[in-house]
C-alpha cells in the first residue's frame, strides 16, 4: 500500500490515452450521478420498464458487472489458487478488479431494486429459500466479503496462506453465486426460451471469457502495449485459454440456437428466431463478442498480444450485448394469456428501449469502475511484489 497525498492521487502523466481515459471516466461518473438524482426524483417512472418488460438495462448492467467480477476472480485463481506460476502476477490486479466491478454492479442494482433497505431486512427475516435471487444476492454478499479479505492479505497485510484460503472461499462462493444468477433466468418456467440448464452453465463460461478480456485490457493499459517478457508469456498463455473458451462458447451457442429452433416449439422457437435476427445478436454478441477475438487468436496462434487487446475491447462491447440480450430476449415473447387481440391489436413481440436515465446509470457504472480502478492502481501496488 502506498501512502500518497491527495494531490498526487489525481496527478497522472498527460499522455493522449490517459487524458481520453480521464475524460471518459469523469463523463461516465457524472452521468451515473445525474441518472441517480433523476431516479431519486422520479422513481421508476424514469425507467422504460413496463408490466410486459419489467427488467431492463439496469438488470443487464448488473449482470455485466457481476459476470466481470466472477470472471476476474476465476482467472486470477489460476495462479493464485491453483498455483500455476505464470499467472500468479495477475492475482492482485484481478482481485482488485473483481472487487471494483461487483461494487459497481451493486451500485447499479441498488438503483433498480425498488426497496433496497426492505431487501436487507427481509432477506434475513423471511428468506425465500426457493428464490434464485435470494441465493444469488446472499452468496454475492458473502463472495464480496471473501474477496475483500483475500485482497487485504494480498496487498495490504501480506499473508499468503490467508489470502489463498480466502481466495478459495471466494472462488467457490463466487461460482455458486454466479451459477445462481444464471438460474434466476434458467428457473423461469414461464419463459421457454430461457428455461433450462443453459444459463447456469453458460454464465460460468462467459464469466471466464469476460475475465480474460478484462485482463487483456488492464494489462494493455498498464504497460501501454510494451509488455515485459514475463507479462507477454502470461498473456500468450491466457490468449490460448481464451481461444479455447471462445470455441466452447460458440459451440454452446450454436447448439442452444439449434435446439431452440428445432421442432418449432411454441414460444421458444419464435423468440430465439426473433432474437438472432436482430443486429444486437449477430453483430453485437456474435461478431464483436465472439468471432473477432476468436479469429485474432486463431490466426496469430495467440501470439498477437496487441491485437488481442484491441479484440478484447470489441469482446467487452459484445459481452454488453450478451447481457442485454439475456434480459431482453427472455422477456421478448408477449405473455398474452388469452389476450389474442387485445384492443383490436394482435400481440407482437414486446418492445423495450432503455430511457436516458437507464443509460446514464447503467453505462455510468462503467465510469465508477474506471474511477475506482484508477484509485486502486494509485493507492495499492497492483503489480506482483517480489517473492522472498
Amino acid at each position, binding site marked *: 500500500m502506498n501512502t500518497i497525498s491527495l494531490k498526487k492521487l489525481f496527478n497522472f502523466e498527460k499522455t493522449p490515452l490517459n487524458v481520453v481515459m480521464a475524460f471518459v471516466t469523469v463523463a461516465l461518473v457524472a452521468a451515473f450521478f445525474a441518472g441517480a438524482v433523476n431516479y431519486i426524483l422520479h*422513481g*421508476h417512472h424514469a425507467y422504460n*420498464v*413496463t*408490466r*410486459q418488460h*419489467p*427488467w431492463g438495462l439496469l438488470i443487464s448492467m448488473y449482470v455485466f458487472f457481476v459476470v466481470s467480477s466472477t470472471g476476474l476472480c476465476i482467472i486470477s485463481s489460476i495462479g493464485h489458487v491453483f498455483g500455476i506460476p505464470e499467472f500468479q502476477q495477475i492475482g492482485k490486479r484481478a482481485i482488485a478488479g473483481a472487487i471494483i466491478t461487483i461494487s459497481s454492479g451493486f451500485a447499479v442494482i441498488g438503483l433498480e*431494486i*425498488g*426497496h*433496497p433497505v*426492505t*431487501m436487507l431486512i*427481509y*432477506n434475513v427475516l*423471511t*428468506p*425465500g429459500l*426457493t*428464490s*434464485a*435471487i*435470494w441465493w444469488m*444476492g446472499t452468496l454475492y454478499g458473502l463472495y464480496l466479503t471473501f474477496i475483500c479479505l483475500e485482497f487485504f492479505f494480498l496487498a495490504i497485510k501480506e499473508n499468503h496462506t490467508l489470502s489463498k484460503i480466502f481466495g478459495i472461499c471466494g472462488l467457490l462462493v463466487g461460482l455458486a453465486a454466479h451459477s445462481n444468477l444464471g438460474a*434466476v433466468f434458467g*428457473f*423461469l*418456467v*414461464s*419463459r421457454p426460451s430461457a428455461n433450462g440448464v443453459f444459463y447456469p452453465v453458460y454464465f460460468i463460461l462467459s464469466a471466464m471469457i469476460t475475465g480474460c478480456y478484462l485482463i487483456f485490457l488492464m494489462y494493455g493499459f498498464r504497460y501501454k502495449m510494451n509488455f515485459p517478457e514475463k507479462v507477454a508469456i502470461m498473456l500468450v498463455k491466457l490468449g490460448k485459454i481464451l481461444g479455447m473458451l471462445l470455441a466452447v462458447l460458440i459451440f454452446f451457442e450454436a447448439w442452444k440456437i439449434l435446439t431452440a429452433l428445432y421442432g418449432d416449439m411454441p414460444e421458444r422457437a419464435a423468440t430465439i428466431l426473433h432474437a438472432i435476427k436482430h443486429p444486437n445478436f449477430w453483430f453485437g454478441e456474435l461478431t464483436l463478442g465472439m468471432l473477432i477475438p476468436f479469429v485474432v487468436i486463431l490466426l496469430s496462434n495467440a501470439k498477437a498480444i496487441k491485437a488481442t487487446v484491441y479484440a478484447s475491447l470489441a469482446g467487452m462491447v459484445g459481452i454488453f450485448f450478451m447481457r442485454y440480450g439475456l434480459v431482453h430476449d*427472455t*422477456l421478448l415473447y408477449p*405473455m*398474452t*394469456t*388469452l*389476450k*389474442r*387481440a*387485445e384492443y*383490436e391489436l394482435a400481440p407482437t413481440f414486446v418492445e423495450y428501449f432503455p430511457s436516458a436515465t437507464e443509460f446514464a446509470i447503467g453505462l455510468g457504472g462503467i465510469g465508477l469502475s474506471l474511477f475506482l480502478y484508477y484509485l486502486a492502481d494509485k493507492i495499492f501496488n497492483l503489480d506482483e511484489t517480489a517473492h522472498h
Partner: protein
Amino acid sequence: MARYGMALNYKNCINCRACESACKEENGVLLLKDHYRIWVGVKEAEGQFPNISIASQTYHPSQCQHCDNAPCQQVCPTNATYYGKDGMVMVDPNKCILCTYCINACPYDARYVDQRTMTVDKCTFCSDTRLAAGETTTACQATCPTKVRVFGDLDDPNSEISVLLANKEYRQVKEHLGTKPKLFYIL
C-alpha cells in the same frame, strides 16, 4: 380452510368489461396504463365474409390463477408473495422489495407494479375487500350480467363450483407448467 377457485362459463361472456370496472372500483385499482388485476382476452372471429365463423369469436376473462404451485411465490426472495388463507396467493407490500422477479416468473401476466406503494399487486379474489367483510362473491362475479363467473370453495364437494366442475368439461391455461392454476374455463 377453504380452497377458493373460479370457474368461467367463458362462452357466455359478452365482453362488456363490467368486471374490469367493478374490480377497479372495489379494490381501488388506479386508472393507469398497466394497472389491471383482471382483463378480458379477445379472440376475433376467423374467416372471410361470408364464411365468418361466429363460434371462433370468443372472450376469455382472466386474472391471477391463484396457482396451488405458484412460480411467483417460489421466486420471491423475501417471501413477500405467500400462500394466504383459503389457498390464495397474496403479496405483503411491506416485504416486497420490487425486484419484479415475480412478474417475470408468472406465466399468466397477472402482476403489475402499483404506483402508489411501488410494490407488486394482483387479483386477491377480493379477499381483503369483500370476503373479509363477509361477502361470498367477488366484485367481478357479482357484476357480471351473463353469470360467467362462479367463485367458490373447491374443497367443498357441495359448493356450486365443485358441482359445476364435476359435471362439465373444462380446460385450464398452461397447466403443463405444473402451476396447478385455479381458474377453470367451462367448455
